[in-house]
């Protein structure tokens, strides 16, 4: 299993906002343990999904030169369960981005069908902060290699850009 908790970007506006989706499937092992008999998407993994959506958004704001690390979760509230067959939607908005780091506001909704009727309903809100760790206040040095934006994360961003070019040729 790969540690990727978003499937696709639906919207990406560099420096402003991004929206990604994740399809929840019973084929995912963790749902069988969380919780037995009542499979629901763990809130902790939705925080991770928001961190990945926002992290790539924050990374793009500095052309992926910075190592963007989740540093603080200011707020995380959840009001609805997400179940297999649902699609989680992570919408992240940049509030601040500076040389040292960034803060974002995020909302989570779920696209779910109830008796065949598709609805999008609120799930939660998450506000978080990222550090550009090469500019940390303690002056700690990290390897030059950008270990944050590996090929898998970059592929998500590139796929969105390819889709956009296909949809809007020229």
């Amino acid at each position, binding site marked *: 299993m790969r540690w990727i908790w978003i499937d696709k970007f639906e919207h990406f506006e560099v420096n402003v906002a991004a929206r990604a989706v994740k399809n929840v499937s019973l084929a995912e092992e963790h749902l069988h343990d969380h919780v037995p008999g009542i499979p629901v998407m763990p809130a902790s993994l939705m925080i991770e999904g928001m961190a990945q959506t926002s992290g790539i958004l924050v990374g793009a704001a500095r052309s992926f030169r910075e190592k963007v690390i989740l*540093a*603080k979760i*200011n707020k995380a509230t959840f009001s609805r369960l997400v179940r297999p067959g649902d699609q989680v939607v992570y919408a992240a908005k940049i*509030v*601040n981005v*500076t*040389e*040292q*780091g960034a*803060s974002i506001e995020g909302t989570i909704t779920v696209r779910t069908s109830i008796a065949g009727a598709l609805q999008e309903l609120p799930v939660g809100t998450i506000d978080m*902060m990222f*550090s550009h760790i090469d500019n*940390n*206040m*303690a*002056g700690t040095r990290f390897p030059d290699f950008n270990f944050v934006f590996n090929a898998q994360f970059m592929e998500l961003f590139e796929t969105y850009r390819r889709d956009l070019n296909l949809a809007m040729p020229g």
Partner: protein
Amino acid sequence: MPMSRDEVFAKVKDVLTTALAVDDDEVTPQAKLSEDLGAESIDYLDIQFQLEKAFGIKIPKGELTPENIFSNPEFVQNNKMTPKGLAELRLRMPFADLSTFEADPDINNFRDVFTVDTLVSYVMTKVNP
């Protein structure tokens, strides 16, 4: 209209209770952000963002927390600020009370300069220039 120190303090208190998840009564003027209120490095950036929003001000990089001082051998020797380093700090942080730090200028003590009062004094210079 200029803001009074009490008005600034009340807003700074709101920012700190939110950013550091501390109780109202913990945020006294003398409270040290790190030692007393548990602020870690990312919290300083959070506080900076929230102060900017609360007061409608812009905090330029290095203004509230001075940069390129502690890595300069002219300013720091054997983990102690030199007289030249202290003079530079006074120049860069006119809003801060450095007297306690000056008495024992070990750089590990520097974070204690950041009290609630230091933030209030800094914001005062921004809202009532």
